[in-house]
């Protein structure tokens, strides 16, 4: 699939923007703070209903505006589909597919699939487990959108169970807890087992691509591995790449066993200590864990390998290429890695790249160029050294020609 048109209203620094894209590579070039990431963030929001930078929707709304609207036309198998989301912080978002009536936001998931790699992804390797869980769950949803509902059900049941544990701790009413807790155990175990099972199967399918992508990017035989680390007793860590995933029944039983085992600690702390919300994705490089051991460059390669593996997986099982977004990635890679990454993504249906410095992107990859400057996007004047820099734009052309040629940014 590819993005044919993006329309932003009141999103981040954009009052109004309409921009056309084509298949292949598009590179957005502009100095720091000009709105490059804002633009690709909007694309990611439409695909995942979340930002890759912030946890709440408020910062996405242009200062002074009350809502933001992101619209896109996506082409899949030669057919146009328009998607629209209206972001209303503090109120329900509204969504629309095609010209039809409004749909639940959740129903647009799957209409645009993206894999977005950004500097923030370094946290996949160096940061907390929550980021790695989100990586897995986002990929689950991109594969099968119904997991969005399962994930949100799990979170709601978890909040209820935690509230019950907390209430019991403050009121010291053990009888009331014993009366109600089994109900929430049952529901949390059922939804939690399904989610865990889905993650384990995802991991089994994803793992081979991760090792491969890491080696390709770093031109080494590194032995990069991912393994699922579970909080459930009696579930052995599932070795990646090997087909044996426990059944939903086995995982359900393990969740109940975990509740029984942790009962007194759970009551003491007033939180649920067992379940997929406590699990982690373990990253290993050779014999050592990546977290705490891998070098800065190795960590970057690992984060990139996770995203590229996600891309390969989606490409293989959804039978259409997702849109690949690389935000500010090339500046962080050495020349060898840049060239190898460029070769790896050259056959992707559509790639959106952002860069503060045009020369950071290998010249034969850069594709169509757009200048981003103070929230306006224009086509730069033809550059004799680059041949493929022509694309129509519907946006107004910046009047100051001296600024239209990108210059090296001061970072």
């Amino acid at each position, binding site marked *: 699939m590819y993005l044919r048109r993006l329309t932003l209203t009141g999103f981040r620094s954009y009052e109004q923007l309409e921009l056309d894209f084509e298949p292949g590579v598009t590179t957005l070039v502009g100095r720091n703070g000009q709105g490059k990431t804002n633009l690709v963030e909007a694309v990611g929001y439409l695909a995942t209903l979340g930002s890759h930078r912030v946890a709440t929707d408020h910062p996405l709304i242009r200062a002074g505006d009350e809502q933001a609207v992101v619209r896109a036309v996506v082409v899949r198998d030669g057919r146009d589909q328009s998607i629209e989301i209206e972001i209303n912080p503090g109120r329900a978002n509204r969504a629309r597919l095609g010209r039809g009536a409004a749909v639940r936001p959740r129903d647009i998931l799957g209409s645009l699939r993206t894999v977005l790699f950004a500097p923030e992804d370094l946290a996949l390797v160096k940061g907390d487990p929550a980021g790695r869980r989100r990586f897995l769950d986002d990929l689950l949803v991109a594969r099968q959108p119904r997991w969005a*509902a399962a994930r949100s059900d799990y979170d709601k049941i978890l909040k*209820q169970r935690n*509230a019950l544990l907390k209430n019991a701790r403050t009121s010291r009413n053990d009888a009331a807890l014993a*009366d*109600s807790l*089994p*109900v*929430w155990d049952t529901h949390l175990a059922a939804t939690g087992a399904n989610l865990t099972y889905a993650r384990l199967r995802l991991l089994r399918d994803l793992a081979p691509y991760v090792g491969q992508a890491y080696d390709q990017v770093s031109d080494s035989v590194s032995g990069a591995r991912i393994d699922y680390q579970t909080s459930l007793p009696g579930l052995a860590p599932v070795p990646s790449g090997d087909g044996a995933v426990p059944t939903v029944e086995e995982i359900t039983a393990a969740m109940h066993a975990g509740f029984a085992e942790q009962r007194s600690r759970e009551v003491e702390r007033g939180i649920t200590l067992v379940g997929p919300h406590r699990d982690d994705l373990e990253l290993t490089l050779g014999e050592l864990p990546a977290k705490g051991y891998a070098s800065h460059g190795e960590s970057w390669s690992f984060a990139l390998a996770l995203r590229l593996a996600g891309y390969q997986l989606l490409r293989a099982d959804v039978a259409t290429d997702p849109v690949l977004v690389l935000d500010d990635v090339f500046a962080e890679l050495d020349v060898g890695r840049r060239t190898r990454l460029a070769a790896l993504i050259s056959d992707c249906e559509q790639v959106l790249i952002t860069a503060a410095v045009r020369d950071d992107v290998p010249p034969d990859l850069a594709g169509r160029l757009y200048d981003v400057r103070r929230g306006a996007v224009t086509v730069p004047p033809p550059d004799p050294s680059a041949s493929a820099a022509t694309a129509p734009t519907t946006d107004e052309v910046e009047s100051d020609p001296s600024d239209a040629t990108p210059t090296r940014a001061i970072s």
Partner: protein
Amino acid sequence: MYEGVVQDLIDELGRLPGVGPKSAQRIAFHLLQADRADVQRLSEVLAVVKDKVRFCDLCFNVSEDTLCRICGDSRRSVSLICVVEEPKDIMAMERTREFRGRYHVLGGAISPIDGIGPDDLRITELMRRLGAEPIEEVIIATNPNLNGEATATYLSRLLSPLGMPVSRLASGLPVGGDLEYADEVTLGRAFEGRRLIGG
């Protein structure tokens, strides 16, 4: 801010569920411009409703008497009891015309976050009825959302050891929703296809 009594009206309306400040203002100005007789009728109904309407002694439906119209209807079966969250769910079930038994209104669903536990629902009253009335099947028609499902699980765990057949409306209802919003055909079908979950 408007002057005195107009602002009071807007404030009072704004305290109603589902009425935000903007709607409150719109309703207030609508009332100010409406016919005196219309407003008079509204104010009379408001005054009377609090005195006249009470809850049915048996099922806790809204009622003008000690027993509601359904509990007082001798043609209805006394062997079937349908457990719902709110009186408005009775209205939804009645529209399907599938159910000829009686109801029991819990007054909500279990929700620890909102501080609502089983003790805050009319479950003791339900147990008392099961002992006193010749009930042969309990149909749980709590909402098809997480709290409704949790309440159904709680009730079935409570009733099954008594050997009481407990059934739950079939799936097919829009998940995450309210009974109130299900159309009659869907709700009727869910009722017909109810499945035994205990007893």
